[in-house]
């Protein structure tokens, strides 16, 4: 009896299935949505570089359409295109300076309206990931990267996989939440090498216990 009451009560308190409860909601066409978005940023008055921020590329368009859960054949297409987009370091060296990588991981500056385009754009890894155990201000949108290199025995394949993941995470999983740092030219190849060193250098605080 008590259980029944509790169940009934929790059913009342349950989160409403939001849109489903509102009758007569119209379907919004892609054209209508895009028109509202463009108007919302006064698209016609913007410089080309800012117009490009509003326009969706194929990956963004498909991931929006499927709300990040594309059917297998679409996912395969996105992953193939992402893999094709990757430019590897010409000299075959993946690891830079872990101290520079740490600075990039902490740095969230850049590409916002009003940001100085001459200043270094950060990777802002700590916004979403735990990295060095000594840094307590980390986000949890992405998985913990604590001990990343050590846990993978600093293997060459793991380093290459991480390069691919940072350059274009859609090559690993279609419609990843993570930005395409290389493919969208947020970070340079050298920047990515520094971040990789932060993840894979045995002396990096990421791979130290304290």
């Amino acid at each position, binding site marked *: 009896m008590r259980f029944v009451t509790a169940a009934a009560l929790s059913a009342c308190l349950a989160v409403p299935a939001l849109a489903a409860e509102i009758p007569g*909601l119209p379907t919004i066409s892609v054209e209508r949505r895009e028109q509202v978005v463009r108007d919302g940023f006064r698209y016609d008055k913007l410089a080309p570089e800012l117009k490009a921020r509003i326009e969706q590329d194929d990956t963004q368009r498909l991931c929006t359409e499927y709300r990040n859960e594309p059917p297998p054949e679409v996912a395969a297409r996105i992953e193939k295109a992402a893999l094709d987009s990757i430019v590897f370091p010409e000299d075959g060296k993946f690891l830079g300076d872990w101290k520079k990588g740490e600075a990039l991981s902490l740095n969230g500056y850049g590409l916002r309206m009003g940001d100085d385009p001459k200043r270094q754009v950060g990777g802002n890894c700590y916004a979403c990931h735990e990295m060095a155990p000594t840094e307590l201000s980390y986000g949890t949108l992405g998985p913990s990267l604590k001990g990343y290199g050590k846990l993978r025995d600093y293997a060459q394949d793991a380093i290459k996989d991480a390069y691919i993941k940072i350059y274009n995470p859609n090559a690993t999983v279609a419609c990843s939440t993570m930005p395409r740092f290389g493919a969208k030219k947020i970070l340079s190849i050298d920047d990515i090498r520094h971040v990789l060193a932060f993840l894979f250098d045995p002396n990096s605080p990421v791979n130290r216990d304290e």
Partner: protein
Amino acid sequence: MRIGRFLAQCLAATCLATAAAAQSENPLEEYRRLLADPFANPGYLFVDRGEALWHQKRGPKNASLEQCDLGLGPGVVEGAYARLPRYFADADRVMDLETRLMWCMVNLQGFDEATIKKSAFSKRGGQSDMEALVAYVAEKSSGMKFEIPLEHPKEKEAYALGEAVFYRRSSYFDFSCSTCHSQDGRRIRLQELGNMTRQEDAARAMTSWPTYRVSHETLRTMQHRMWDCYWQMRMPDLDYGSELSVALITWLTKNAEGGELAVPSIKR
């Protein structure tokens, strides 16, 4: 009378706060608790300035806002914010509080819309009339629950549009609103993120705006919150009062329905 009630509330809150202070061991919680003390909330200065602005004859037409219809009839301020956004026949569009105030300032007082938009968000230490007016009107719904009509076809369209836009990815980082706001219990750095597809989280967010932002040294509104999110998403400046902004606010407010307003709040 109003000030008297405010003072009494503040004194009571201060006493309770002092009693609780010794028990708090988490510095972050302690900081948040201190912020929640209404006696220390400069947001109420904006409420008072907004009240004066509402009644004052201003603009090229030398008119007050006392005949402004916020949805419950001309001049009705009490409870109006808890019923917005909604469709307004005279403007033939869905409006949130700020769009509606702007409409009244243009049509009743003769102010120029572009000028209002330019000064809607105050600079550090600046004085935005809009921020003060929003504080005044919203405070008159404090303690009430959000409940918006969503009956008119344009209100329904605004809700559906808001949801569609919430999931739209773009710009350098491929972010959509949902990137940060569709999962439970996540953080950016130490900042907790609300899951706006859940009533509890949407309510926690929507019932605490407008808010006095300590780091901004001013009171911030929901339009500013939308602009700020897009700024973080590396998008261009969101147009103040745009259909896009109102659609998102409509979707969020509907999701927050049932949440009880406690404004102006104070945040870091």
